[in-house]
């Protein structure tokens, strides 16, 4: 059934984990691309696609279908390379606030104004950011990087910043896709990037209450690994969990793949400690729910670094699941798949199941991110189940976790519902693969950029009755806009449903295109994404499900939350940070 001969037993075991992040992340991670420096896709001398390194199960393997898919989908050609221009010397010298630096020295908190450290923390992973870095165009970057080691270090740094009027930008995992990390070009003060990576300890685990108190700089994979050692997990698994940090999750209202079992970040946090220019904000107890006016946590959740630095968080934890089972269902078309997901969301108690993805996963263009893995499968299905149009079928990936009996019961329930919508169980392997792919997909974009292909994904949340319409319209809009803007090759424009809720779903859109022949591809890209976002909003979708607003989606904030809403947010900002010390200018 599979075209690759490897097995994945557990999704996390595929990650060859490194112990914590070093001060100088560029030593192990790409400064102008996704993830670890040693892991990347490339076309070898024989023209075969290969994934390098040793960290992932896929590492060191040849991926047979990738080249055909890549060339077929984008019209890309291996002869046309667009390698990055390495030019890190273009960084402007730092503007230092001498008094601040002097006092910082006396606190003993490590810091650096080395160009590489600064550049690394100047960008997230939006297409335009990575593209600029690859071309060696480097704009405003932080002037200084500090590495606080604990909550008290942060308190000292914030006090000094206030005293010397220095702009602080908190930096966690650096996986932002909303231009949230970009230094505002109009900022004249010295900008200090506050890297939380050294605050990465689990301070305590409370087995009676099933909570853990954790420093906010810890990244997802470390948190999960450490908890697993004690037999627990948080169950919060965003696609970026290898690199994104707990503090970042809180600051952007993150969501994980298993949210149907464990909940989103706002459901998982019990207590938050944040350092602001006004002082430290935290609640006085760890009560599971309170009626004490509007929940102050909600000023912090999603504040995107505009109010302060989250330093410590108490999170719910759960015993590691006793039993885990993957699964997948193939549907004749996307419409049926969505109808099924809707029905599942209606009927099945959300405790122990997970439906993670439905999309045109097998549709050649689409799927074909996955094609290499699923080629064999696809052929079998086409022959085995006649009547499925291979160009229209789609696949849903499932993961059931929990007590064995319940898992099996829910599994049956879900498959029964699926059958009503014409879905056919497609086996565990496919489910597992689909799940694992999440972590390597991000690497694919860098490969594309080597060959004039630019791509990005963006998300929204939308009521059930609009899911199909929004998918159809946004995809069509992307194709339409590309044509209007002179993109010569048909773009990749596809989507999947990644989360289900009682009242709606989260939809991801994937957009990629071959930019050969365009003089300003990033501009074209931005225009298309902008148009796609307008289309999303016009079709009843939200501005963002979990990526956040940052600076990329700021312009739509007031229409999203109303002017009064903006006023509320602003008045909180004005009180908490009147001098705009946390000056990344996200949100509004």
């Amino acid at each position: 059934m599979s075209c690759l001969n490897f097995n994945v037993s557990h999704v996390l075991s595929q990650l060859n984990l490194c112990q914590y992040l070093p001060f100088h992340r560029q030593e192990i991670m790409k400064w102008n691309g996704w993830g670890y420096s040693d892991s990347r896709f490339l076309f070898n001398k024989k023209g075969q696609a290969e994934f390098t390194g040793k960290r992932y199960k896929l590492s060191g393997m040849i991926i047979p279908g990738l080249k055909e898919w890549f060339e077929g989908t984008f019209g890309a050609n291996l002869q046309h390379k667009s390698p990055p221009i390495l030019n890190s010397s273009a960084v402007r010298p730092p503007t230092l606030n001498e008094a601040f630096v002097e006092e910082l020295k006396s606190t003993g908190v490590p810091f650096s104004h080395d160009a590489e450290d600064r550049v690394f923390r100047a960008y997230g992973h939006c297409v335009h950011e990575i593209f600029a870095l690859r071309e060696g165009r480097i704009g405003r970057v932080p002037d200084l990087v500090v590495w606080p080691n604990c909550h008290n270090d942060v308190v000292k740094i914030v006090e000094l910043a206030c005293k010397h009027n220095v702009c602080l930008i908190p930096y966690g995992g650096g996986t932002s896709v909303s231009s949230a990390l970009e230094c505002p070009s109009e900022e004249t003060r010295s900008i200090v990037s506050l890297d939380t990576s050294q605050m990465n300890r689990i301070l305590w685990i409370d087995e009676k209450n099933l909570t853990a108190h954790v420093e906010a700089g810890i990244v997802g994979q470390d948190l999960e690994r450490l908890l697993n050692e004690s037999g627990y997990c948080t169950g919060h698994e965003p696609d970026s969990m290898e690199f994104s940090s707990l503090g970042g999750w809180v600051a952007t209202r993150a969501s994980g793949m298993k949210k149907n079992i464990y909940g989103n970040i706002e459901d998982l946090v019990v207590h938050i400690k944040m350092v602001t220019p006004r002082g430290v904000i935290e609640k006085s107890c760890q009560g599971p729910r309170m009626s004490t006016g509007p929940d102050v946590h909600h000023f912090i959740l999603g504040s995107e670094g505009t109010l302060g630095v989250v330093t410590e968080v108490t999170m719910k934890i759960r015993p590691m699941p006793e039993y885990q089972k993957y699964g997948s269902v193939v549907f004749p078309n996307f419409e049926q798949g969505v109808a099924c997901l809707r029905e599942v969301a209606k009927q099945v108690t959300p405790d122990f199941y997970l439906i993670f993805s439905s999309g045109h996963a097998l549709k050649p263009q689409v799927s074909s991110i996955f094609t290499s893995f699923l080629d064999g499968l696809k052929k079998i299905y086409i022959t085995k189940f006649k009547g499925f149009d291979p160009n229209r079928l789609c696949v849903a990936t499932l993961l059931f976790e929990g007590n064995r009996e319940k898992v099996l019961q829910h599994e049956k329930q879900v498959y029964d519902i699926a059958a009503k919508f014409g879905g056919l169980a497609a086996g565990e392997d496919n489910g597992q693969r689909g799940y694992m792919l999440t972590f390597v997909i991000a690497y694919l974009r860098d490969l594309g950029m080597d060959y004039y292909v630019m791509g990005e994904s963006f998300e929204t949340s939308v009521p059930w009755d609009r899911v199909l319409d929004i998918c159809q319209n946004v995809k069509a809009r992307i194709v339409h806009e590309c044509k209007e803007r002179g993109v010569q090759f048909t773009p990749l424009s596809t989507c999947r449903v990644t989360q289900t809720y009682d009242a709606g779903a989260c939809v991801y859109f994937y957009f990629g295109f071959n930019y050969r022949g365009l003089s300003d591809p990033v501009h074209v890209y931005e225009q298309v994404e902008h148009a796609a976002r307008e289309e999303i909003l016009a079709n009843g979708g939200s501005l963002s499900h979990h990526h956040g607003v940052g600076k990329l989606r700021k312009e739509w904030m007031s229409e999203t939350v109303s002017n009064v809403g903006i006023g509320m947010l602003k008045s909180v900002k004005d009180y908490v940070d009147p001098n705009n010390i946390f000056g990344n200018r996200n949100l509004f």
Partner: protein
Amino acid sequence: MTTNRERHVERSPSASYDCSKFDLWQAQLYMDSSCLLASLHGSDTLLFADMQHRDPMLQKRDEFEDMLEERRNSSDLRYALRCYTPVLYKGVTPCTAGALKNMVLQSAQIHFVIGQVSNETGRAVDDIQEEASAILEEMAHSLQLSTVRFFAFTLSKVFKTLFRSICVNEEGIQRLQQAIQEHPVVLLPSHRSYMDFLLMSYILYTYDLALPVIAAGMDFMGMKFVGEMLRMSGAFFIRRSFGGDKLYWAVFSEYVKTMLKNGFAPVEFFLEGTRSRTSKSLTPKLGLLNIAMDPFLKGEVFDVHLVPVSISYERILEEALYARELLGVPKPKESTSGLFKARKVLSEDYGSIHVYFGQPVSVRRLSQGKVDRGQFNLTPRHIPKRPSEEIHSFVNDSAYGLVRAQEENMVLKPWVLLASLLLQNHHGDQASGRARGMALDELTEQAVWLRDLSRQYGAFLHWPDHVPPPEVVSSSLSLHRGLVTITEGRVQLASEQGEPPPVGPEEELLRQAVTVLSCVSYRNQALHVFLRPALLASAVHAASSSGKQEIFNSFSFLRNMFSNEFILCPGATVQDFEEACFLLVKTGALHVSQQEVVVTERGHRTLAFLTSVLDPFLQGYQVRVRSRLRYTEVLSSDLQKNALAALLRLGAVRKIKGYVGFDHPRVPVGSVEYARPRARLKLHHLEFISTNESVWFVAIRVSTDVKQQLRPYSAFGGKHEVFIRIMNEFIQIMNEFIRPTDFMMSDSFAVFFSSETLLLKCSGACWSDGEAERRARL
């Protein structure tokens, strides 16, 4: 201004009232014009680009192919039975009529409305469901290929007999084919004849395009057999009015939307709502367009493409029928036997038809920046909601734009120009009291002049340039010999020779009026070409100075006044003015500077022509002090209907309980009732003033009650004495209520007796010469 006002006050106590209105209105105009000036002072290049864009001369149009030619050379039967495999939207499989009905009945919207109606009326849900099902049954089409093939065969025969050619722009067909594959498509043909929709389906069948489903008026259902035939060829039937019937509206709109959204078939309807009896485009009706745009606005489809289609007939089958209808001879009820009686028309030559499929218009593009689709985010989309102000005005603007697009691609035949010239001449003759007609060579000379002028204005004129003009003129005249007579080299309008001599002077008058109105309908075909320049010409004519501002004000007044009469896009006054200036300057008729608009030496002829184009309409909207009835065409019920609508819109008259009532300080508000043994009259006085203080617009109308009473005497068929007695009573009443001093009514006034059944125009106290004579004879 001040002097004007003083004179008003002297003349009538009502003047101060009128003046305040006038001032307000002026203020509005100044606001408008400040926009104009701003735009004039704007960037030159921008303005230039704008102008270029608007220059109708630069419009590219496709070539025509005659589709009858092939029919004349090959078997109609084989054609009717050939393989027909149209490409559908995104390759959807066609849906049976039954499945479609089920989809509609099971839709969320119908469920919701049924629940709602049940709650409101207390009726059982099942009961209402059945009603919905019955409505759908009455409405739904049942398209069958066999019926289409039957029509393909018979229509081939009929068309070949009636028409010389049916010309279609094949590039338009290709664009349509493309559009049908990519998006749901709405076909919007112009509506001049019953023939239109059969013709449309016939063309689409011929070119292997998806057959449309067509919204048709319920009146067709009166023809039992034919109604069913039409249903089987794709027509679905809607009631002409269903006021507040929620359920009907829900079923109807869901039915149309389901067909559109799923792309089962292109939906076809007539923006004008009904056949235009005057050949002048009717102001668009918005109901169906609203429904057609809804799936896009609610995000149910990516886009909807609207395709304006212009169908131009060289001779309309219903030509004489329409003229009579306009004069108040009742429209014959649609009936099968009536249709067979109409066979007489088969023996005549109706020239050619041109069908132009316009550029598909994307609703998405059209709505860009005009509609916030997010407004549907907060309520479930299946709950019917009244369109917001924003959407209403968007749909309205779009509808006007589409009707203009239809107009622009209407093919004009030389006869249209001849009719315009002959009419103007005819009116001149009437004014001078001599019927001399026009010398052929003079007519030819003028026609050539007008040909060049209309081309410069962007008319889509089919004038055979390789044929010498005299021949073009004479062949046009011969095709329309029913409307003209040529004696001793002079051409004049006249009714058909050879018919039995008129029974009395009334019939004579009626016959004459039919001829004039028939001609008018041809002249009207070219109106859209001359409209904007004509409005400007009339404004220049009426203005007391050459000040640009004054002329603009006047233009704006006229434009506003006539916006029920012609297709004038709402809110486009400044653009229209600029366009008119541009055209007249381009043709050297006007010189327009920053401050002034001056007629050039050679411009007088053009301006005179243009002014007289609009003159009959001006007359129809007013009775000028000390003037006589000059244009027979003001008898047209269409014109009167529009005039009344305009006066209502402008606030000159008000509707009171369904009647139009007084709105004048000297006369109590409300309709005036006057009981007489034979006629219960309700008088309605309409009054308005123009920018020019010497011109008063006054019209007096008798309500439908009178019409009922007078029906026996309609069309001069009854006893004249009775009629005249009623007339005299009426005049007495008029004099009682409206004192001559108020309105100088003693000099003249006009009476329109009902709009539909009987028409007589007389000039109150002093009849016009001809009529006075006739009256004496009676």
